[in-house]
């Protein structure tokens, strides 16, 4: 299990290949990549700056990944999150989960994203033609995280 916070871009294919290298018990590789859009909340977005809370960020991501590992039989997990300045189409976050079976890999990947969205200390500031603005949290993200508390997780 690995968690990285970095300014540099990442290569999803290389990350997945490295994670599953030599592991012949892996039957399922699920991944989620969040990408910067050029449009949000009704206006064009030219660039974005991602701020975070160094120290807590890594702790929060590790705790989310550890919780996923208690809920599902995962062989390995990778979370990479970028900080600093980003432009439209730039990848922001990557979550990869490896398991013997698809149910565990897919559910854990969704779970990690839902908790990352509500518990990992990152904040986005967008630059639009009308000026800079901090992105507001979405109520739907809280609901998405809440659904994992309600008994049937998978």
């Amino acid at each position, binding site marked *: 299990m690995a968690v990285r916070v970095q300014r540099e871009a990442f290569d999803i294919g290389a990350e997945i290949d490295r994670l599953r290298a030599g592991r012949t018990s892996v039957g399922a590789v699920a991944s989620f990549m*969040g990408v910067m859009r050029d449009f949000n909340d009704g206006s064009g977005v030219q660039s974005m700056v*991602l*701020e*975070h*809370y160094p*120290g*807590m960020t890594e*702790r*929060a991501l590790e705790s989310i990944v550890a919780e996923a590992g208690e809920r599902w039989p995962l062989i390995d997990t990778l979370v990479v*999150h970028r900080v600093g300045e980003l432009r439209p189409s730039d990848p*922001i*976050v990557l979550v990869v989960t490896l398991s013997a079976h698809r149910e565990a890999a897919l559910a854990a990947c969704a779970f990690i*994203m839902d908790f*990352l*969205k*509500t*518990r*990992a*200390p*990152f*904040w*986005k*500031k967008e630059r639009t033609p009308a000026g800079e603005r*901090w*992105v*507001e*949290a979405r109520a739907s993200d809280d609901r998405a995280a809440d659904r994992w508390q309600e008994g049937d997780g998978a």
Partner: protein
Amino acid sequence: METAHGSVRVLYFARLREAFGTSGETMDLAPGLCTVADLRERLALRGGVWAEELAGSRVVRFAVNQTLCPPAHALSAGDEIAVFPPVTGG
């Protein structure tokens, strides 16, 4: 220089950091400043942008020693307390 109660480190992030014009400060743990909720109230009493962000019902998150904590969480000398808006990563 610490008081008899000790002090805590308070950090601000994102919109709050910009609004307050500071990324953090050291505060003394005076009597009546025992919980995260007390800290929010104490900061809001400063008025201006502090009241604007903290006095009302705006959602603010607190982490104590890098773990998210509810308002009732008790503070201890030496704690690192972060105050920030709901997160928006991913």
